[in-house]
């Protein structure tokens, strides 16, 4: 029974990391410079989940296997006066679509809620089992 709580907890951690990545994508939707100040538009990050939990060494649960870059093309904006504009006057902006991010955020928070429900069910089952002793 205690293992079931571990499973739900691992999923909560994974979904939270997914949510953090989505927030990071949204925050950087207009960042065209990297941390060192070079012109390199921000690439959208995507989390990839895999079953199993390395934190507890269990086959059950879920963990973030990788945070990958979205290789889709950058958004091109026509800004001829921009210092980073190319020969055609186009500037590359991050390939982040706020609508997609909002939908993914909703999916992540619903998945989080589902896991909370599962954890609550586990807790109530444990509590009832413990009441047998009293």
């Amino acid at each position: 029974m205690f293992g079931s709580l571990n499973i739900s907890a691992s999923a909560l951690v994974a979904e939270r990391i997914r949510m953090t990545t989505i927030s990071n994508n949204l925050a950087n939707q207009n960042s065209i410079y990297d941390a060192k100040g070079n012109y390199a538009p921000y690439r959208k990050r995507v989390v990839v989940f895999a079953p199993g939990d390395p934190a507890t060494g269990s086959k059950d649960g879920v963990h973030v296997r990788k945070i990958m870059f979205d290789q889709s093309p950058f958004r091109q904006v026509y800004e001829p006066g921009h210092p980073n504009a190319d020969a055609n006057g186009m500037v590359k902006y991050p390939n982040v679509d706020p609508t997609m991010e909002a939908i993914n955020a909703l999916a992540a928070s619903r998945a989080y809620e589902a896991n909370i429900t599962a954890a609550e069910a586990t807790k109530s089952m444990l509590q009832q089992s413990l009441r047998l002793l009293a």
Partner: protein
Amino acid sequence: MIKGLLDKGAIPVLERMIQFAAERHRVLAHNIANISTPYFKPKDINTDSFQESLREAVSRRRTHKNPLAGPLQVPGTREVQFKDGLIQVRPSFINENIMFHDRNNRALERIMQDLAENTLAHKSGIEMLRNEFDMLRTAIRERV
């Protein structure tokens, strides 16, 4: 386990039922945890076949001379095995619902329904076991 006190009547049957519900709960929690994992396919343990083998065990015990006191031998199925009072499960894939683009055939509503049902099954098992224990306690106290 105290012989003749805790291995009689409904107690072993309820024990198996609760063990099964606890183990199935783990499988369902795993399904919910992997609701957005690509290539993941939800698994489940068939409740009907478990109920069937439990029924078989109870009716087999009834053929004994003392119907309530005989040992409860639950015949193992492909998914559920009992060994030395411990449960071992091998869940199998639920091959229903459509396959999504991430190769996961999740059905959140179905899983949550199973979770709710399983929690209630566990609860009813616990409540009945509690009643059995209360009766034993009443007998021990020799007072109603």
